[in-house]
């Protein structure tokens, strides 16, 4: 069977599985009516959390960024994992006790202020939009390649599917659907990684293969380490060494911190912690989730390295017409482009962009059959543009793996994008309908009206997200990084101080959020949209890149909030009591009643 048919089968099959589980879980024949979601083990909950957590960014884009940026990309690994731990240990247990479901609800109640709630809603919408746009891009790429359509049409297909899945299907609320998604996703990620690891290094585990020596064509140990070979390959092409970074230490620190704190402030992940009823189960689930996430995160560097080696060895100095099918397929999807600068009919790789901007095809074919471009070529030797987001998806094809592995990866990519995008969409729609409309603008709105508003909000959100998916301001992982930056600079400080500092009042919180959000947003917009040509280290303030600026915004948020709260009235007694209470174990309260 060919790849195309297998892909339809795998993606279709995985959907059938999710729907089947959803139906099965609703027709439960148990006699016990009250035990809702009872008997979901912490392991299953952990897997469900991991599926929510690992987005298209983790699945599709992270390994791609690692393949291209090498050591520099380690910030994503550290930041995201660290953020998860921060959330699970530092914030989630206390937020649970506050008894509010959404982040704006928590902020609105903790800071006894509708203004604070509104600012929080705006932050939620901003952060979630940015994040969901990244997911839409990822989904679009998957559909583009495997349905053999243009990436823009792929995004539209993804929009429709995500909307139905999240809003109409009601499948998001079912733990076992999420577990199934995790299984599909993790198989899809690790199977090709293991294949490649065995083929290239003889190690079964990609995690150990990453640090091992390569096998030569005959299958004997060549004595050259994978990373040695990679460093040698990339430096020959004029790139900087794979294993050494180009970012300044301060920038690495700031980006990591922004990713960490941003993760901890992401509303759709916080919500996931609330869906486990018992505190103890929630802790055990968090542990399992970390384990499940680690399986993917520790394989990613190896996948990136394998892919880069294979890519260079396959593509560099090969005649365009002699290249394997995947190269031409991805070119047709608009994610690979080649311009034959030296006219030799072969593809050359080199450091720097081969031409300015993203590919703009003229619609005509060149003498070798390549799609012609209207972009102005640059003066370096590089001739080929490869979208980094395709690395994981193309990896099995580049490595010549069997067709079913290729199909499996497609199903995994869809699973990853689907669960996260759906979660975000729900956050946006409930923030608008519940926190904004019902709680503030129109408190007398009927429940039916609120429901309708939620659906409209979700529909509008998906359209806007789709627009940004078609016109992305960066790669998936980078777009997502901005979402984290915004979350770090807006939510994280007010949530943290809301829990641990009872003197923090509404004036401080509102001022802090506004300063953090506006500063971070402006900085990013300036360097990414207004003056993208100035987006280099020497123009950056304190040498901090737009990806890491969220940390600075967060610091400003903290400082502003502390200063403002000093000079304004303390919060009411009742709020201070609540803040004290949520840090006292609940069991102590129960004992008094005895």
């Amino acid at each position: 069977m060919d790849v195309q048919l297998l892909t339809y089968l795998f993606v279709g099959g995985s959907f059938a599985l999710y729907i089947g589980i959803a139906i099965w879980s609703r027709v439960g024949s148990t006699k016990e009516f009250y035990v809702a979601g009872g008997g979901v083990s912490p392991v299953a909950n952990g897997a469900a959390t991991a599926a929510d957590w690992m987005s298209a960014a983790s699945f599709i884009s992270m390994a791609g960024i690692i393949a291209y940026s090498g050591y520099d990309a380690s910030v994503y690994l550290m930041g995201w994992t660290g953020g998860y731990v921060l959330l699970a240990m530092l914030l989630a247990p206390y937020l649970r006790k506050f008894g509010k479901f959404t982040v704006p609800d928590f902020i609105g109640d903790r800071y006894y202020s509708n203004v604070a709630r509104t600012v929080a809603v705006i932050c939620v919408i901003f952060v979630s939009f940015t994040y969901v746009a990244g997911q839409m891009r990822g989904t679009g790429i998957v559909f583009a390649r495997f349905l053999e359509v243009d990436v823009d049409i792929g995004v539209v297909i993804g929009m429709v599917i995500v909307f139905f899945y999240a809003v109409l299907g009601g499948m998001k609320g079912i733990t076992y659907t999420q577990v199934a998604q995790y299984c599909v996703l993790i198989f899809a990620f690790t199977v090709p990684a293991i294949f490649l690891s065995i083929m290239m290094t003889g190690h079964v585990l990609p995690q150990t293969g990453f640090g091992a020596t390569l096998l030569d064509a005959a299958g004997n140990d060549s004595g050259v380490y994978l990373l040695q070979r990679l460093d040698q390959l990339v430096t020959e092409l004029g790139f900087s060494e794979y294993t050494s970074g180009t970012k300044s230490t301060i920038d690495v620190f700031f980006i990591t911190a922004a990713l960490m704190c941003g993760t901890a402030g992401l509303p759709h992940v916080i919500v996931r912690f609330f869906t486990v009823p018992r505190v103890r189960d929630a802790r055990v689930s968090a542990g399992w989730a970390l384990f499940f996430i680690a399986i993917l995160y520790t394989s990613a560097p190896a996948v990136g390295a394998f892919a880069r080696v294979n890519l260079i060895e396959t593509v560099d100095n090969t005649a365009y017409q002699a290249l394997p099918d995947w190269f031409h397929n991805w070119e047709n999807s608009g994610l690979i482009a080649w311009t034959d600068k030296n006219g030799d009919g072969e593809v050359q790789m080199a450091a720097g962009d081969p031409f300015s901007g993203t590919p703009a095809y003229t619609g005509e074919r060149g003498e070798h059959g390549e799609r012609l471009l209207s972009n102005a070529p640059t003066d370096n030797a590089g001739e080929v543009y490869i979208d980094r987001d395709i690395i994981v998806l193309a990896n099995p094809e580049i490595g010549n793996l069997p067709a079913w592995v290729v199909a499996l990866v497609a199903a995994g990519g869809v699973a990853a994008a689907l669960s996260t995008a759906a979660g975000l969409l729900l956050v946006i729609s409930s923030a608008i309908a519940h926190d904004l409309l019902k709680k503030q603008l129109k408190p007398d709105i009927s429940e039916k009206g609120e429901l309708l508003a939620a659906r409209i909000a979700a529909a509008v959100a998906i359209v806007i997200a789709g627009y940004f998916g078609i016109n992305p301001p960066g790669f998936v992982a980078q777009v997502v990084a901005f979402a984290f930056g915004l979350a770090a600079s807006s939510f994280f400080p007010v949530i943290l101080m809301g829990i641990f500092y009872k003197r923090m009042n509404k004036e401080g919180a509102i001022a802090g959020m506004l300063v953090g959000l506006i500063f971070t947003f402006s900085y990013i917009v300036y360097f990414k949209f207004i003056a993208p040509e100035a987006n280099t280290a020497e123009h950056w303030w304190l040498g901090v890149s737009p990806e890491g600026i969220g940390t600075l915004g967060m610091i400003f948020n903290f400082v502003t909030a502390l200063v403002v709260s000093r000079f304004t009235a303390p919060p009411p007694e009742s709020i201070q009591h609540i803040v004290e209470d949520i840090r006292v174990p609940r069991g102590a309260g129960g004992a008094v009643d005895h």
Partner: protein
Amino acid sequence: MLTADLNRLPFTLLDSGQRRRLEAGLDLGYYAVGQVLLESGAEPENVYLIHKGEVVEEDPALSGEAAWIGHYAAGDLFGAISVLNGRSRYRFRVEQEALCHLLPAALFLSLCEGCPAFAEYFQQRLADKTQRLLARRGAFGATLAGFMLSRVRACLRPPLVLAEAVRVTDAAAALRERRADSLLVGAGEALGMVTKTDLLEALVHARVTPQSPLTGLGTRPLIGVDIDDYLFSALVTMTQHRVARLVVFENGGVAGIVELLDVLGQFSSRTHVVGLQIEQAQDMAALVAAGSGLTALVEGLMAQGVKLRFVMALLSALNARLIQKAFTFAVPETLQAQSCLLVLGSEGRGEQVLKTDQDNALILADGESWAGREAADRLTAAMQHFSDQLAQLGYPPCPGGIMVSNPAWVASESAWLGKIARWASSRDAESLMQLAILLDARAVGGQVALLDALRESLFRHCADDELLLSHFARGALRFGSPLRLFSGLRRREEEVDVKKAGIFPIVHGVRTMALERRVTVTSTFDRLEALVVDGRLDRAFADDLAEALGFFAELRLRRQLAAIDTGASPAAATASVIVSRLSGFERDLLRESLHTVRAFKQRLTHRYHLEY
């Protein structure tokens, strides 16, 4: 050739000659999916009798849900009303390819002419349908119950109000003259009720002489109903308070008296007979005899077409009295004075029509010594005895052990408070179930005030905790809907478990809202009412939910009664109904009710964040 089944209504109304004419005139037609049999406004040529397939009736002027008027399947007949009217009001469209017997309009009209009963049948259907549509579209604010039940206003007697200074002998004369049984004494707020029996007793015990004034006589406060209440709730109130007459209020003033005999005259039921038997029972044997009449009573009321929710309210009052009486027989008086007996679950909500499992619990007042081993043993023995008594009365022990013979459900007030705190904080499936059970508790015996503190604590722990409410509400989504994605019921042969598909989601969803809004009444119907007053639910939707719940409960009760007829226990009866065995009208109601449940689930999902 296929023959139509004419051995059923309305064809059985025709004589054999007319039936032969009808049979001879029938034609057969086949229609494909989507085909319009009868356009809105068109003049119908036939009356259709479906042999196979499905047809929907819709209003082309509206779209979506609102457009939907009716649904017809094998065995149903449609188009008759259109023929009688001369044109079709709505459009009939084939939903699943259909094979229909066609009865030409001219023949149909001539049959109607020749057989008034036949014509009457369709006129009646027209009235039914109109009423149902009007009710559904909210043209009438009231529910269908309004058409079926009379109000207190309908059997009111004018009040006889006398001043306290009036002499007893004059009062007796006034009673005789007005042929009244009772009078109200006093003025304004301080009215009291004096019955003939009261006067007689006072005279016999020489507390008054015929010449003394009425001062000092009269029962206060007055027990009453509003003039616009259903007569049925008057009956419930009488049963609850064990009185034979109630004062009727209108706008805060007294409008009259409603007497038990008058109410019974309207219902001609055995309700009060059973009530009296329970009241007069002096020992368990008499109580058992009284209790055995309950099932027959239910069947009688149902046969009279009394709306189930009123039967429920009445029966729950009778059940409560039965249980309370058993409690006074089985438990020493000292214990009765220091404890509160709760009924839980559906009995607590007053939604149990037939006697099923014992679901009960006991609160012991704090500070009383039931702690010592000996005392504890005595307590356990008393509770075991009580439980055995209930079993004798026909309430089998609860298989889940939620009853007073299980020490886990007997605790002091402070121990209960501790349990509530623990359940509220651990919020696992088991705890949430316990909270739900306790939330439905109703005090029926002993010191009923003890329950208030428990309920207060329950609200304090749960009502503001959005997370807990979310976990609590999730139970309502536990069972899927038998509705297809976009339209009606699935295949006709299908069984619908009305308990899972209808009753449970409504009861649990409303329970969650009641917890959120600190509603203290326990009946789902009363909770809906309270939630409307609170502003949490809109009136129209709450009425829809109440209608739907009433309908589901009725379907379920029918299954249970059928099970009793065959000698099985009602608890063992399944709540499944087979769609094809319902009448066309009931199928419509079932479908509508399931739609209401689906809409309710969507609201719950949104409100309690269950989409995550």
